[in-house]
Protein backbone atom coordinates (compact mmCIF):
# COMPACT_ATOMS: atom_id res chain seq x y z
CA UNK A 1 0.00 0.00 0.00
CA UNK A 2 2.96 2.28 -0.14
CA UNK A 3 4.00 2.73 -3.75
CA UNK A 4 4.48 6.38 -4.63
CA UNK A 5 6.44 8.64 -6.94
CA UNK A 6 9.65 10.00 -5.44
CA UNK A 7 11.11 11.96 -8.31
CA UNK A 8 10.29 12.95 -11.85
CA UNK A 9 12.60 14.23 -14.56
CA UNK A 10 11.08 15.83 -17.65
CA UNK A 11 13.14 16.28 -20.79
CA UNK A 12 11.64 18.32 -23.66
CA UNK A 13 8.21 17.76 -22.18
CA UNK A 14 5.81 20.64 -23.04
CA UNK A 15 7.41 23.80 -21.59
CA UNK A 16 10.07 21.89 -19.64
CA UNK A 17 13.54 21.60 -21.24
CA UNK A 18 15.05 19.51 -18.48
CA UNK A 19 13.61 19.72 -14.98
CA UNK A 20 13.58 17.41 -12.01
CA UNK A 21 10.88 17.53 -9.34
CA UNK A 22 10.99 15.71 -6.01
CA UNK A 23 7.73 14.56 -4.49
CA UNK A 24 6.59 13.33 -1.09
CA UNK A 25 4.11 10.69 -0.07
CA UNK A 26 0.81 12.26 0.99
CA UNK A 27 -0.21 15.64 -0.34
CA UNK A 28 1.88 17.61 -2.85
CA UNK A 29 0.54 21.04 -3.79
CA UNK A 30 1.77 22.53 -7.07
CA UNK A 31 1.44 26.30 -6.86
CA UNK A 32 1.92 28.81 -9.65
CA UNK A 33 0.23 31.36 -11.88
CA UNK A 34 -1.60 30.24 -14.98
CA UNK A 35 0.32 29.16 -18.10
CA UNK A 36 3.56 28.43 -16.27
CA UNK A 37 3.33 24.63 -16.45
CA UNK A 38 1.34 23.29 -13.48
CA UNK A 39 -0.91 21.18 -15.66
CA UNK A 40 2.07 20.10 -17.77
CA UNK A 41 3.76 18.78 -14.64
CA UNK A 42 0.72 16.68 -13.75
CA UNK A 43 0.49 15.49 -17.33
CA UNK A 44 4.18 14.53 -17.27
CA UNK A 45 3.63 12.39 -14.17
CA UNK A 46 0.82 10.58 -15.92
CA UNK A 47 2.92 10.17 -19.06
CA UNK A 48 5.84 8.84 -17.05
CA UNK A 49 3.76 6.22 -15.24
CA UNK A 50 1.37 5.12 -18.01
CA UNK A 51 3.24 5.91 -21.23
CA UNK A 52 0.55 8.18 -22.62
CA UNK A 53 -1.10 11.51 -22.00
CA UNK A 54 -4.68 11.68 -20.74
CA UNK A 55 -5.05 15.24 -22.02
CA UNK A 56 -5.03 14.96 -25.75
CA UNK A 57 -5.22 12.37 -28.52
CA UNK A 58 -2.57 14.41 -30.38
CA UNK A 59 0.39 13.04 -28.50
CA UNK A 60 3.07 14.88 -30.47
CA UNK A 61 1.91 18.02 -28.65
CA UNK A 62 3.73 16.88 -25.52
CA UNK A 63 7.10 17.31 -27.22
CA UNK A 64 8.64 20.73 -26.59
CA UNK A 65 8.02 22.92 -29.61
CA UNK A 66 11.49 23.02 -31.18
CA UNK A 67 12.49 19.46 -30.24
CA UNK A 68 11.96 16.09 -31.91
CA UNK A 69 11.66 13.86 -28.87
CA UNK A 70 10.72 13.93 -25.20
CA UNK A 71 11.58 11.71 -22.29
CA UNK A 72 10.35 11.24 -18.76
CA UNK A 73 12.20 9.43 -16.02
CA UNK A 74 10.61 8.53 -12.72
CA UNK A 75 11.75 6.95 -9.49
CA UNK A 76 8.97 4.97 -7.86
CA UNK A 77 9.23 3.93 -4.21
CA UNK A 78 7.93 0.43 -3.56
CA UNK A 79 7.72 -1.65 -0.43
CA UNK A 80 10.77 -3.66 -1.47
CA UNK A 81 12.87 -0.71 -2.56
CA UNK A 82 12.61 1.39 -5.67
CA UNK A 83 12.16 1.16 -9.38
CA UNK A 84 13.35 3.46 -12.16
CA UNK A 85 11.01 3.81 -15.07
CA UNK A 86 11.40 5.89 -18.21
CA UNK A 87 9.41 6.64 -21.34
CA UNK A 88 11.09 7.93 -24.49
CA UNK A 89 8.93 9.27 -27.27
CA UNK A 90 9.74 10.60 -30.71
CA UNK A 91 6.58 11.37 -32.73
CA UNK A 92 6.07 8.84 -35.50
CA UNK A 93 8.01 6.16 -33.67
CA UNK A 94 7.02 3.55 -31.14
CA UNK A 95 7.29 4.68 -27.54
CA UNK A 96 9.90 2.95 -25.52
CA UNK A 97 9.01 2.43 -21.88
CA UNK A 98 11.69 0.82 -19.72
CA UNK A 99 11.61 -0.54 -16.19
CA UNK A 100 15.00 -0.51 -14.44
CA UNK A 101 16.59 -0.14 -17.85
CA UNK A 102 14.83 -3.19 -19.33
CA UNK A 103 12.32 -2.53 -22.14
CA UNK A 104 8.74 -3.23 -21.04
CA UNK A 105 7.07 -6.11 -22.92
CA UNK A 106 4.55 -3.67 -24.37
CA UNK A 107 3.07 -0.25 -23.85
CA UNK A 108 -0.22 -1.91 -22.87
CA UNK A 109 1.49 -3.83 -20.10
CA UNK A 110 3.40 -0.77 -18.99
CA UNK A 111 0.16 1.21 -18.78
CA UNK A 112 -1.46 -1.55 -16.75
CA UNK A 113 0.77 -1.19 -13.72
CA UNK A 114 4.13 -1.97 -15.29
CA UNK A 115 5.60 1.16 -13.74
CA UNK A 116 4.72 -0.14 -10.27
CA UNK A 117 2.01 2.38 -9.54
CA UNK A 118 -1.18 3.48 -11.28
CA UNK A 119 -2.67 6.97 -11.56
CA UNK A 120 -6.10 8.55 -11.42
CA UNK A 121 -6.21 11.91 -13.25
CA UNK A 122 -8.57 14.79 -13.00
CA UNK A 123 -8.26 17.53 -15.59
CA UNK A 124 -10.90 20.26 -16.00
CA UNK A 125 -11.83 18.79 -19.38
CA UNK A 126 -12.91 15.58 -17.62
CA UNK A 127 -16.22 17.23 -16.87
CA UNK A 128 -17.31 15.73 -20.18
CA UNK A 129 -17.37 12.28 -18.58
CA UNK A 130 -20.68 13.27 -16.96
CA UNK A 131 -21.65 16.21 -19.13
CA UNK A 132 -20.57 15.00 -22.55
CA UNK A 133 -21.38 12.30 -25.08
CA UNK A 134 -21.60 8.53 -24.47
CA UNK A 135 -18.18 8.20 -26.17
CA UNK A 136 -16.62 10.21 -23.32
CA UNK A 137 -18.12 7.89 -20.73
CA UNK A 138 -17.05 4.77 -22.63
CA UNK A 139 -13.52 6.14 -22.86
CA UNK A 140 -13.41 6.69 -19.09
CA UNK A 141 -14.58 3.14 -18.42
CA UNK A 142 -12.27 1.54 -20.99
CA UNK A 143 -9.23 3.43 -19.70
CA UNK A 144 -10.00 2.40 -16.13
CA UNK A 145 -10.42 -1.30 -16.96
CA UNK A 146 -7.39 -1.27 -19.29
CA UNK A 147 -5.20 0.05 -16.49
CA UNK A 148 -6.08 -3.08 -14.54
CA UNK A 149 -6.43 -5.73 -17.25
CA UNK A 150 -4.10 -5.58 -20.27
CA UNK A 151 -6.09 -8.42 -21.87
CA UNK A 152 -9.12 -6.14 -21.80
CA UNK A 153 -7.11 -3.34 -23.41
CA UNK A 154 -6.16 -5.70 -26.22
CA UNK A 155 -9.70 -7.01 -26.66
CA UNK A 156 -11.08 -3.46 -26.82
CA UNK A 157 -8.51 -2.45 -29.45
CA UNK A 158 -9.15 -5.63 -31.48
CA UNK A 159 -12.89 -5.06 -31.16
CA UNK A 160 -12.52 -1.55 -32.60
CA UNK A 161 -10.51 -2.97 -35.50
CA UNK A 162 -13.04 -5.74 -36.16
CA UNK A 163 -15.89 -3.20 -36.21
CA UNK A 164 -13.88 -1.10 -38.69
CA UNK A 165 -13.47 -4.16 -40.91
CA UNK A 166 -17.17 -4.94 -40.65
CA UNK A 167 -18.13 -1.33 -41.46
CA UNK A 168 -15.93 -1.36 -44.52
CA UNK A 169 -17.46 -4.67 -45.57
CA UNK A 170 -20.99 -3.24 -45.13
CA UNK A 171 -20.14 -0.34 -47.44
CA UNK A 172 -18.56 -2.66 -49.99
CA UNK A 173 -21.70 -4.83 -49.95
CA UNK A 174 -23.91 -1.75 -50.31
CA UNK A 175 -21.85 -0.43 -53.20
CA UNK A 176 -21.65 -3.81 -54.93
CA UNK A 177 -17.94 -4.52 -54.38
CA UNK A 178 -18.48 -7.47 -52.02
CA UNK A 179 -20.94 -10.29 -51.59
CA UNK A 180 -22.52 -11.02 -48.21
CA UNK A 181 -20.62 -14.32 -47.93
CA UNK A 182 -18.12 -13.15 -45.34
CA UNK A 183 -20.50 -11.03 -43.27
CA UNK A 184 -21.41 -13.91 -40.95
CA UNK A 185 -17.72 -14.49 -40.34
CA UNK A 186 -17.04 -10.89 -39.37
CA UNK A 187 -20.17 -10.88 -37.22
CA UNK A 188 -18.81 -13.85 -35.30
CA UNK A 189 -15.44 -12.17 -34.81
CA UNK A 190 -17.06 -8.89 -33.78
CA UNK A 191 -19.35 -10.64 -31.28
CA UNK A 192 -16.55 -12.75 -29.83
CA UNK A 193 -14.47 -9.62 -29.07
CA UNK A 194 -17.48 -7.47 -28.22
CA UNK A 195 -18.60 -9.95 -25.59
CA UNK A 196 -15.28 -9.61 -23.79
CA UNK A 197 -15.67 -5.83 -23.82
CA UNK A 198 -19.30 -5.99 -22.64
CA UNK A 199 -18.55 -8.39 -19.80
CA UNK A 200 -15.63 -6.26 -18.65
CA UNK A 201 -17.68 -3.06 -18.70
CA UNK A 202 -20.72 -4.49 -16.96
CA UNK A 203 -18.60 -6.00 -14.20
CA UNK A 204 -16.76 -2.69 -13.72
CA UNK A 205 -19.97 -0.64 -13.57
CA UNK A 206 -21.43 -3.01 -10.98
CA UNK A 207 -18.32 -2.67 -8.87
CA UNK A 208 -18.08 1.12 -9.30
CA UNK A 209 -21.65 1.89 -8.30
CA UNK A 210 -21.40 1.45 -4.51
CA UNK A 211 -18.07 3.33 -4.52
CA UNK A 212 -19.72 6.18 -6.43
CA UNK A 213 -22.68 6.21 -4.05
CA UNK A 214 -20.29 6.59 -1.12
CA UNK A 215 -18.12 9.29 -2.63
CA UNK A 216 -20.97 11.34 -4.09
CA UNK A 217 -22.81 10.97 -0.80
CA UNK A 218 -19.82 12.49 0.98
CA UNK A 219 -19.39 15.27 -1.62
CA UNK A 220 -22.98 16.14 -2.29
CA UNK A 221 -25.57 14.80 0.09
CA UNK A 222 -27.81 11.91 0.98
CA UNK A 223 -29.59 11.52 -2.38
CA UNK A 224 -28.79 8.13 -3.85
CA UNK A 225 -26.32 8.02 -6.73
CA UNK A 226 -26.63 5.28 -9.30
CA UNK A 227 -24.76 4.00 -12.34
CA UNK A 228 -26.60 2.17 -15.06
CA UNK A 229 -24.99 0.55 -18.06
CA UNK A 230 -27.28 1.02 -21.05
CA UNK A 231 -26.88 -1.51 -23.82
CA UNK A 232 -27.49 -1.27 -27.52
CA UNK A 233 -27.90 -5.02 -27.00
CA UNK A 234 -27.41 -7.05 -23.81
CA UNK A 235 -25.02 -9.99 -23.73
CA UNK A 236 -27.67 -12.71 -24.15
CA UNK A 237 -29.15 -11.28 -27.35
CA UNK A 238 -26.08 -9.50 -28.72
CA UNK A 239 -25.29 -11.96 -31.54
CA UNK A 240 -28.94 -12.09 -32.56
CA UNK A 241 -29.33 -8.30 -32.49
CA UNK A 242 -26.27 -7.85 -34.68
CA UNK A 243 -27.65 -10.38 -37.17
CA UNK A 244 -31.03 -8.68 -37.22
CA UNK A 245 -29.41 -5.30 -37.84
CA UNK A 246 -27.61 -6.51 -40.97
CA UNK A 247 -30.03 -5.05 -43.50
CA UNK A 248 -30.14 -1.62 -41.90
CA UNK A 249 -26.40 -1.71 -41.23
CA UNK A 250 -25.66 -2.38 -44.90
CA UNK A 251 -27.82 0.55 -45.89
CA UNK A 252 -26.07 2.90 -43.45
CA UNK A 253 -22.63 1.39 -43.93
CA UNK A 254 -22.03 1.24 -40.22
CA UNK A 255 -22.48 -1.16 -37.29
CA UNK A 256 -25.41 -0.04 -35.16
CA UNK A 257 -25.24 -2.61 -32.37
CA UNK A 258 -22.50 -3.41 -29.88
CA UNK A 259 -20.45 -1.99 -27.01
CA UNK A 260 -19.12 0.83 -29.23
CA UNK A 261 -22.67 2.23 -29.16
CA UNK A 262 -23.32 1.73 -25.45
CA UNK A 263 -23.58 4.27 -22.69
CA UNK A 264 -23.71 4.45 -18.96
CA UNK A 265 -25.88 6.82 -17.01
CA UNK A 266 -24.89 8.61 -13.86
CA UNK A 267 -27.94 9.55 -11.84
CA UNK A 268 -28.66 11.22 -8.56
CA UNK A 269 -31.93 10.58 -6.76
CA UNK A 270 -33.18 8.93 -9.94
CA UNK A 271 -32.36 11.92 -12.18
CA UNK A 272 -29.94 11.48 -15.09
CA UNK A 273 -27.17 14.01 -14.49
CA UNK A 274 -26.03 14.23 -18.11
CA UNK A 275 -29.35 15.64 -19.20
CA UNK A 276 -30.77 17.25 -16.08
CA UNK A 277 -27.83 17.87 -13.75
CA UNK A 278 -26.70 21.38 -12.88
CA UNK A 279 -23.12 22.37 -13.72
CA UNK A 280 -22.28 21.99 -10.01
CA UNK A 281 -23.82 18.52 -9.77
CA UNK A 282 -22.00 17.42 -12.90
CA UNK A 283 -18.72 18.67 -11.49
CA UNK A 284 -19.18 16.85 -8.19
CA UNK A 285 -20.33 13.68 -9.94
CA UNK A 286 -17.19 13.74 -12.11
CA UNK A 287 -15.05 14.09 -9.00
CA UNK A 288 -17.01 11.33 -7.29
CA UNK A 289 -16.45 9.05 -10.32
CA UNK A 290 -12.71 9.68 -10.03
CA UNK A 291 -12.80 8.81 -6.35
CA UNK A 292 -14.83 5.71 -7.17
CA UNK A 293 -12.15 4.82 -9.74
CA UNK A 294 -9.55 5.16 -6.96
CA UNK A 295 -11.54 2.76 -4.78
CA UNK A 296 -11.94 0.37 -7.70
CA UNK A 297 -8.18 0.26 -8.34
CA UNK A 298 -7.60 -0.24 -4.63
CA UNK A 299 -10.14 -3.07 -4.57
CA UNK A 300 -8.65 -4.75 -7.65
CA UNK A 301 -4.96 -4.41 -6.81
CA UNK A 302 -4.75 -3.79 -3.08
CA UNK A 303 -2.72 -0.68 -3.95
CA UNK A 304 -3.69 2.97 -4.00
CA UNK A 305 -3.19 4.82 -7.26
CA UNK A 306 -1.56 8.25 -7.27
CA UNK A 307 -4.11 11.05 -7.55
CA UNK A 308 -3.29 13.80 -10.05
CA UNK A 309 -5.91 16.53 -9.78
CA UNK A 310 -5.55 19.70 -11.81
CA UNK A 311 -7.10 22.92 -10.58
CA UNK A 312 -9.86 21.11 -8.72
CA UNK A 313 -10.29 23.48 -5.77
CA UNK A 314 -11.23 26.74 -7.48
CA UNK A 315 -14.79 25.77 -8.38
CA UNK A 316 -15.70 24.33 -4.98
CA UNK A 317 -17.07 25.96 -1.83
CA UNK A 318 -15.05 26.03 1.37
CA UNK A 319 -16.68 23.05 3.01
CA UNK A 320 -15.97 20.81 0.03
CA UNK A 321 -12.43 22.15 -0.31
CA UNK A 322 -11.79 21.07 3.26
CA UNK A 323 -13.26 17.66 2.57
CA UNK A 324 -11.00 17.28 -0.47
CA UNK A 325 -7.92 18.49 1.40
CA UNK A 326 -8.50 15.80 4.04
CA UNK A 327 -9.12 13.21 1.37
CA UNK A 328 -5.84 14.07 -0.35
CA UNK A 329 -3.90 14.17 2.92
CA UNK A 330 -5.08 10.64 3.68
CA UNK A 331 -4.07 9.36 0.24
CA UNK A 332 -0.86 7.45 -0.29
CA UNK A 333 0.05 10.24 -2.70
CA UNK A 334 -1.82 13.12 -4.29
CA UNK A 335 -0.43 15.85 -6.55
CA UNK A 336 -2.80 18.80 -6.71
CA UNK A 337 -2.30 21.98 -8.71
CA UNK A 338 -3.71 25.37 -7.80
CA UNK A 339 -3.15 29.05 -8.50
CA UNK A 340 -4.09 29.88 -4.93
CA UNK A 341 -2.43 28.00 -2.03
CA UNK A 342 -4.91 29.60 0.32
CA UNK A 343 -7.46 27.07 -0.81
CA UNK A 344 -5.62 24.84 1.69
CA UNK A 345 -5.60 25.67 5.38
CA UNK A 346 -2.12 26.46 6.81
CA UNK A 347 -2.12 23.27 8.91
CA UNK A 348 -2.80 21.25 5.77
CA UNK A 349 0.03 22.97 3.91
CA UNK A 350 2.37 22.32 6.82
CA UNK A 351 1.80 18.60 6.35
CA UNK A 352 2.31 18.84 2.59
CA UNK A 353 5.05 19.42 0.11
CA UNK A 354 4.58 22.66 -1.75
CA UNK A 355 6.07 22.82 -5.23
CA UNK A 356 6.30 26.36 -6.57
CA UNK A 357 6.44 27.01 -10.26
CA UNK A 358 7.61 30.54 -11.05
CA UNK A 359 7.73 32.54 -14.25
CA UNK A 360 10.55 33.41 -16.63
CA UNK A 361 12.62 30.45 -17.72
CA UNK A 362 10.73 27.74 -15.92
CA UNK A 363 12.34 26.58 -12.73
CA UNK A 364 10.82 24.26 -10.21
CA UNK A 365 11.63 24.78 -6.59
CA UNK A 366 10.54 22.26 -4.05
CA UNK A 367 10.24 22.86 -0.36
CA UNK A 368 8.60 21.09 2.49
CA UNK A 369 6.07 23.11 4.43
CA UNK A 370 4.34 26.31 3.50
CA UNK A 371 5.31 29.94 3.28
CA UNK A 372 2.58 32.45 3.94
Amino acid at each position, binding site marked *: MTAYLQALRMINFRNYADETVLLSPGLNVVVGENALGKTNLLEAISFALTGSTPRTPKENEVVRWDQDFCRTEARVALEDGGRKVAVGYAPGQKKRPTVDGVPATSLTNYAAGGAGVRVINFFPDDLRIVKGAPADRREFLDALISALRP*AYARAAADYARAVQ*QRNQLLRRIRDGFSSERTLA*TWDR*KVVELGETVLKGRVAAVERLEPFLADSLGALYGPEKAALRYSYSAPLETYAEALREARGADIERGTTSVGPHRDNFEVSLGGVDLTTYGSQGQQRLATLALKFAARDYVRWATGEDPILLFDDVMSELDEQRREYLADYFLQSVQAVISTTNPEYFRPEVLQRSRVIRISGGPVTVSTMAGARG
Partner: protein
Amino acid sequence: MATYARPVERLITELSKLPSIGPKSAQRIAFHVIRGRQEDAFGLAEALREVKERIRPCRRCFNLTEAEECEICRDPRRDPSVICAVEDPYDIGSIERTGEYRGLYHVLGGALSPLDGIEPEDLRIAELVERVKVEGTQEIVVATNPNTTGEATALFIAQEVEDLPVRVTALASGLPVGGDLEYADEVTLGRAFAGRREL
Protein backbone atom coordinates in the same frame (compact mmCIF):
# COMPACT_ATOMS: atom_id res chain seq x y z
CA MET B 1 18.68 16.26 -55.77
CA ALA B 2 20.87 13.78 -57.65
CA THR B 3 23.86 13.60 -55.33
CA TYR B 4 25.32 10.46 -56.90
CA ALA B 5 25.95 9.19 -60.41
CA ARG B 6 22.78 7.97 -62.09
CA PRO B 7 23.43 4.17 -61.72
CA VAL B 8 24.05 4.66 -58.00
CA GLU B 9 20.83 6.64 -57.63
CA ARG B 10 18.99 3.92 -59.51
CA LEU B 11 20.31 1.19 -57.22
CA ILE B 12 19.32 3.21 -54.13
CA THR B 13 15.83 3.79 -55.52
CA GLU B 14 15.33 0.09 -56.32
CA LEU B 15 16.59 -0.97 -52.89
CA SER B 16 14.29 1.44 -51.08
CA LYS B 17 11.28 -0.26 -52.69
CA LEU B 18 12.03 -3.35 -50.58
CA PRO B 19 10.10 -3.89 -47.36
CA SER B 20 11.61 -2.49 -44.14
CA ILE B 21 14.39 -0.73 -46.05
CA GLY B 22 14.29 3.05 -45.72
CA PRO B 23 16.33 5.55 -47.76
CA LYS B 24 19.26 5.45 -45.32
CA SER B 25 19.48 1.66 -45.27
CA ALA B 26 19.16 1.63 -49.06
CA GLN B 27 22.11 4.00 -49.33
CA ARG B 28 24.20 1.91 -46.93
CA ILE B 29 23.46 -1.30 -48.85
CA ALA B 30 24.17 0.38 -52.18
CA PHE B 31 27.59 1.52 -51.03
CA HIS B 32 28.28 -1.87 -49.55
CA VAL B 33 27.58 -3.40 -52.97
CA ILE B 34 29.75 -0.81 -54.75
CA ARG B 35 32.67 -1.39 -52.38
CA GLY B 36 32.28 -5.19 -52.45
CA ARG B 37 33.62 -7.76 -54.89
CA GLN B 38 32.20 -7.92 -58.35
CA GLU B 39 31.28 -11.63 -58.18
CA ASP B 40 29.23 -11.03 -55.03
CA ALA B 41 27.19 -8.33 -56.74
CA PHE B 42 26.72 -10.40 -59.90
CA GLY B 43 25.79 -13.38 -57.72
CA LEU B 44 23.05 -11.33 -56.09
CA ALA B 45 21.81 -10.07 -59.45
CA GLU B 46 21.79 -13.61 -60.83
CA ALA B 47 19.95 -14.92 -57.75
CA LEU B 48 17.28 -12.25 -58.17
CA ARG B 49 16.87 -13.11 -61.84
CA GLU B 50 16.79 -16.85 -61.21
CA VAL B 51 14.16 -16.61 -58.50
CA LYS B 52 11.86 -14.58 -60.71
CA GLU B 53 12.39 -16.83 -63.74
CA ARG B 54 12.20 -20.24 -62.12
CA ILE B 55 10.02 -20.02 -59.05
CA ARG B 56 6.26 -20.40 -59.34
CA PRO B 57 3.39 -21.51 -57.12
CA CYS B 58 2.75 -25.22 -56.69
CA ARG B 59 -0.40 -26.10 -58.64
CA ARG B 60 -1.74 -28.09 -55.72
CA CYS B 61 -0.87 -26.14 -52.56
CA PHE B 62 0.55 -22.82 -53.89
CA ASN B 63 3.80 -23.25 -52.01
CA LEU B 64 6.78 -21.93 -53.99
CA THR B 65 8.42 -24.45 -56.27
CA GLU B 66 10.54 -24.93 -59.37
CA ALA B 67 8.43 -27.85 -60.58
CA GLU B 68 4.72 -28.28 -61.26
CA GLU B 69 4.24 -29.50 -57.71
CA CYS B 70 6.31 -28.61 -54.66
CA GLU B 71 8.56 -31.05 -52.85
CA ILE B 72 6.16 -31.47 -49.96
CA CYS B 73 3.24 -32.36 -52.23
CA ARG B 74 5.43 -34.89 -54.10
CA ASP B 75 6.80 -36.51 -50.93
CA PRO B 76 5.06 -39.92 -50.55
CA ARG B 77 5.90 -40.03 -46.85
CA ARG B 78 3.62 -37.06 -46.05
CA ASP B 79 0.12 -37.74 -44.74
CA PRO B 80 -2.29 -36.55 -47.44
CA SER B 81 -5.34 -36.67 -45.15
CA VAL B 82 -4.32 -33.49 -43.29
CA ILE B 83 -3.94 -30.01 -44.81
CA CYS B 84 -2.45 -27.12 -42.89
CA ALA B 85 -3.71 -23.76 -44.24
CA VAL B 86 -1.26 -20.86 -43.90
CA GLU B 87 -1.32 -17.23 -45.05
CA ASP B 88 2.08 -17.08 -46.72
CA PRO B 89 4.67 -19.53 -48.12
CA TYR B 90 7.20 -18.53 -45.46
CA ASP B 91 4.83 -19.76 -42.76
CA ILE B 92 5.49 -23.27 -44.11
CA GLY B 93 9.16 -22.90 -43.22
CA SER B 94 8.26 -22.02 -39.64
CA ILE B 95 6.04 -25.08 -39.26
CA GLU B 96 8.49 -27.39 -41.04
CA ARG B 97 11.26 -26.40 -38.67
CA THR B 98 9.22 -27.80 -35.77
CA GLY B 99 9.48 -31.28 -37.34
CA GLU B 100 6.11 -32.02 -35.74
CA TYR B 101 3.87 -31.87 -38.77
CA ARG B 102 3.78 -34.54 -41.47
CA GLY B 103 0.72 -33.52 -43.47
CA LEU B 104 0.35 -31.28 -46.53
CA TYR B 105 -0.07 -27.50 -46.79
CA HIS B 106 -2.25 -24.94 -48.50
CA VAL B 107 -1.06 -21.35 -49.00
CA LEU B 108 -4.01 -18.95 -48.86
CA GLY B 109 -2.08 -15.93 -50.05
CA GLY B 110 -3.13 -13.60 -47.23
CA ALA B 111 -6.10 -13.02 -44.96
CA LEU B 112 -9.58 -11.56 -45.35
CA SER B 113 -9.60 -7.80 -44.82
CA PRO B 114 -12.41 -5.59 -46.11
CA LEU B 115 -10.30 -2.55 -45.20
CA ASP B 116 -7.67 -3.68 -47.69
CA GLY B 117 -10.30 -4.87 -50.14
CA ILE B 118 -9.28 -8.51 -49.71
CA GLU B 119 -12.19 -10.83 -50.47
CA PRO B 120 -12.44 -14.64 -50.41
CA GLU B 121 -11.93 -14.53 -54.20
CA ASP B 122 -8.54 -12.90 -53.68
CA LEU B 123 -7.45 -15.84 -51.53
CA ARG B 124 -7.15 -19.50 -52.46
CA ILE B 125 -10.09 -20.59 -50.35
CA ALA B 126 -12.18 -22.05 -53.19
CA GLU B 127 -9.08 -24.05 -54.22
CA LEU B 128 -8.82 -25.36 -50.65
CA VAL B 129 -12.47 -26.43 -50.61
CA GLU B 130 -11.97 -28.14 -53.97
CA ARG B 131 -8.94 -29.99 -52.65
CA VAL B 132 -10.88 -31.23 -49.64
CA LYS B 133 -13.53 -32.64 -51.97
CA VAL B 134 -11.11 -34.22 -54.43
CA GLU B 135 -8.45 -35.46 -52.00
CA GLY B 136 -10.88 -36.65 -49.32
CA THR B 137 -9.08 -34.60 -46.67
CA GLN B 138 -10.01 -35.52 -43.10
CA GLU B 139 -8.64 -32.50 -41.25
CA ILE B 140 -7.79 -28.88 -42.01
CA VAL B 141 -5.46 -27.26 -39.52
CA VAL B 142 -5.90 -23.51 -39.90
CA ALA B 143 -2.62 -21.81 -39.01
CA THR B 144 -3.40 -18.20 -39.93
CA ASN B 145 -1.90 -15.41 -37.84
CA PRO B 146 -3.43 -14.90 -34.38
CA ASN B 147 -4.84 -11.45 -35.20
CA THR B 148 -8.29 -10.17 -36.21
CA THR B 149 -7.92 -10.79 -39.94
CA GLY B 150 -6.23 -14.17 -39.52
CA GLU B 151 -8.87 -15.37 -37.10
CA ALA B 152 -11.73 -14.13 -39.29
CA THR B 153 -10.17 -16.04 -42.21
CA ALA B 154 -10.06 -19.19 -40.08
CA LEU B 155 -13.74 -18.78 -39.16
CA PHE B 156 -14.65 -18.27 -42.80
CA ILE B 157 -12.84 -21.43 -43.90
CA ALA B 158 -14.67 -23.40 -41.21
CA GLN B 159 -17.94 -21.99 -42.51
CA GLU B 160 -17.11 -22.85 -46.14
CA VAL B 161 -16.47 -26.55 -45.44
CA GLU B 162 -19.29 -26.90 -42.91
CA ASP B 163 -21.17 -29.44 -45.06
CA LEU B 164 -18.12 -31.54 -45.93
CA PRO B 165 -16.97 -34.50 -43.81
CA VAL B 166 -13.80 -32.70 -42.69
CA ARG B 167 -12.64 -31.69 -39.25
CA VAL B 168 -11.40 -28.09 -38.92
CA THR B 169 -8.96 -27.21 -36.16
CA ALA B 170 -6.97 -24.11 -35.27
CA LEU B 171 -3.60 -23.82 -33.57
CA ALA B 172 -3.70 -23.14 -29.84
CA SER B 173 -2.25 -19.85 -28.69
CA GLY B 174 -0.50 -19.63 -25.41
CA LEU B 175 2.73 -19.57 -23.50
CA PRO B 176 6.18 -19.77 -25.05
CA VAL B 177 7.94 -22.93 -23.93
CA GLY B 178 11.03 -22.64 -21.77
CA GLY B 179 10.10 -19.21 -20.48
CA ASP B 180 9.12 -18.22 -16.98
CA LEU B 181 5.48 -17.52 -16.29
CA GLU B 182 6.60 -14.35 -14.55
CA TYR B 183 7.89 -12.87 -17.80
CA ALA B 184 4.99 -13.81 -20.07
CA ASP B 185 3.10 -10.81 -21.35
CA GLU B 186 -0.35 -10.54 -19.81
CA VAL B 187 -2.31 -10.86 -23.04
CA THR B 188 -0.63 -14.12 -24.01
CA LEU B 189 -0.95 -15.41 -20.48
CA GLY B 190 -4.64 -14.42 -20.45
CA ARG B 191 -5.22 -16.39 -23.64
CA ALA B 192 -3.33 -19.36 -22.34
CA PHE B 193 -5.53 -19.21 -19.27
CA ALA B 194 -8.71 -19.15 -21.34
CA GLY B 195 -7.43 -22.20 -23.27
CA ARG B 196 -6.28 -24.19 -20.22
CA ARG B 197 -6.68 -27.98 -20.34
CA GLU B 198 -7.57 -30.83 -18.04
CA LEU B 199 -4.63 -32.81 -16.61
